[in-house]
């Protein structure tokens, strides 16, 4: 038994040794991930401590769940959660748009128009978030922007899209759709390109209409990709990104634009309450993680699609 084990481990060692080059190739990525992803995970401890920089992470006194309680009782708790969920669900509702775009592109005859159409729909993706928000601020200005001028042309008063709480989620979500729908459709177009052409031919022989081909060939073909991406989206329900929301935020829309990510930033980076900020962040991450596992489990059970 013992000898066998020894033999096994020796064999293992020789197999590793034989491919030492591969481990060398892996080394930089592994080191970087350990240093910059796993080392910070140890820092999560400060969410449970009264962190003071002088004492360091280890020697700061334990605080238990004090900071979690502080967040749950704070007047910002309900607002940030509500705003985050509203924006997230609103985004998830636009989930079918790239799919429809892909179905449409798939119906186009391969020619110059199709190529032009695809290039143009991808383009906005390359605009940076900063420029995108700058663009929106300029175009949506009720006094000097394109929207303002358009409304004046019809003799109406333009709404202040960037400066009102009521418009925030719509502007956020639809500008995202505008910017990324083409890009997001790529993966579906790829999945559709894998359809065996003989399926379409057979359907044509059977007298299927274009619509029926979409309904019974294309959509089922996209199902696995759709479900995988949907799981990831729902697993990130409380993960509305910091970048765009923070840029779009101003005093006029703050009641509907303060999300968990921006709150974590303000508490942590701007007012240096490290423990409190980490607790909020951890709460967010854990909820997302639990959601992801739940959705993945449900999907595995009912549709045989899953992430793992």
């Amino acid at each position, binding site marked *: 038994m013992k000898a066998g084990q020894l033999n096994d481990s020796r064999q*293992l060692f020789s197999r590793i040794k034989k*491919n030492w080059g591969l481990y*060398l*190739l892996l080394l*930089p990525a592994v080191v970087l991930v350990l240093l910059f992803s796993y*080392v910070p995970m140890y820092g999560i401890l400060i969410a449970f401590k009264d962190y003071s920089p002088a004492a360091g992470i280890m020697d700061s006194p334990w605080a238990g769940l004090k900071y979690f309680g502080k967040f749950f009782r704070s007047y910002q708790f309900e607002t940030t959660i509500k705003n985050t969920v509203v924006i997230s669900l609103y985004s998830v509702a636009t989930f079918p748009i790239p799919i429809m775009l892909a179905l449409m592109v798939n119906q186009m005859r391969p020619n110059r128009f199709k190529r032009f159409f695809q290039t143009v729909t991808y383009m906005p993706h390359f605009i940076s978030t900063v420029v995108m928000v700058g663009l929106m601020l*300029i175009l949506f200005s009720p006094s000097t922007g394109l929207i303002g001028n358009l409304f004046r042309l019809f003799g109406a008063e333009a709404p202040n899209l960037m400066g009102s709480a009521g418009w925030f989620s719509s502007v956020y979500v639809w500008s995202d759709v505008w910017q990324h729908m083409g890009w997001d459709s790529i993966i579906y177009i790829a999945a559709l390109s894998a359809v065996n052409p003989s399926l379409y031919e057979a359907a044509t022989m059977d007298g299927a209409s274009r619509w029926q081909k979409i309904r019974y060939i294309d959509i089922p073909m996209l199902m696995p990709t759709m479900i995988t991406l949907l799981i990831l989206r729902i697993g990130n329900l409380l993960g509305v990104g910091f*970048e765009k929301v923070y840029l779009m935020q101003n005093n006029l829309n703050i009641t509907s634009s303060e999300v968990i990510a921006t709150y974590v930033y303000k508490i*942590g980076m701007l007012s240096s309450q490290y423990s409190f900020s980490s607790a909020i962040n951890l709460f967010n991450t854990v909820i997302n993680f639990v959601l992801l596992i739940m959705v993945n489990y449900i999907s595995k059970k009912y549709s045989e699609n899953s992430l793992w």
Partner: protein
Amino acid sequence: MSGMEARTKKGAHAVYVRSSDRILEIAMYIFAVLLLIVLIYPIYFIVIASFSDPAAVANGQVWLFPKDFTLAGYRELLKHSNIWVGYRNTILYTIVGTAIGLAVNISAAYALSRRDLVGGKYISLLFIFTMFFNGGLIPTFMTIRDFQLYDTFLVMVLPFSVAVFNIIVARTFFKTSIPEDLWEAAQIDGCGNLRYFVQIVIPLSKAVISVIALWTAVGHWNSYFNALIYLKDSNLYPLQLILRNILVTNQMQSALGTGEAAAVALRLANLMRYAVIIVATVPIMCIYPFVQKYFNQGVMIGAVKQ
């Protein structure tokens, strides 16, 4: 050509074209054209506005062509040295960051694609876990600071260079497109792993490498979050952070004061905002057409089968 015509004529009998198909097709192309207008016009408007008299833009006289052509916005742009410092920094971050990102991710992806890698599954898990769980803003900030990377050039190109999604895409590409036999043949000829990777795998993987280079470069060109958190010295600021000050937080306008001169300056500042959008966006959009041809091969293979 004549054959095609004959087919369409005969088509009435042979291939039955439904009128509902025709309608669906026409509706689709009309919708596609409308969508193109919605996507192109705002960008086109910024372009013509950047060449127009700002008063005409504000009064709604600019719709299809520039009005009272001027280069004043671009001239104003030249005066702002911090934009050019930002530009230089961003180019440096993009080049160095993309080089590091490619080296790290492509080599890791290749190693993980090999079936004879002992423990590859566990190492994959180690990477994938970080996609769903991380330390969060403050612990990560503290780590970067403890490693003495805060406010350095390196913080912009090194700590976040591992991109797990890119590794997965490249790994799938290697698995499906580089035949295992090739490695066996090379091995018989006495070729080691490293030489095989550099001399055989890399030249065969231009498609996926260019796609990942594009993703990484766009990411670096457009990012402002890391700079916002980890940089203090304005000489290290990337373009996006400076753009934020000009476009979003309106730092220039608040410095202008009030009165007649201020009104003129304000208009000029507005005009410059149009110009700045063009100058900041054109370079990254110019790269895209060059990689587009690899795009279809690369992404498709990488993304579909993951």
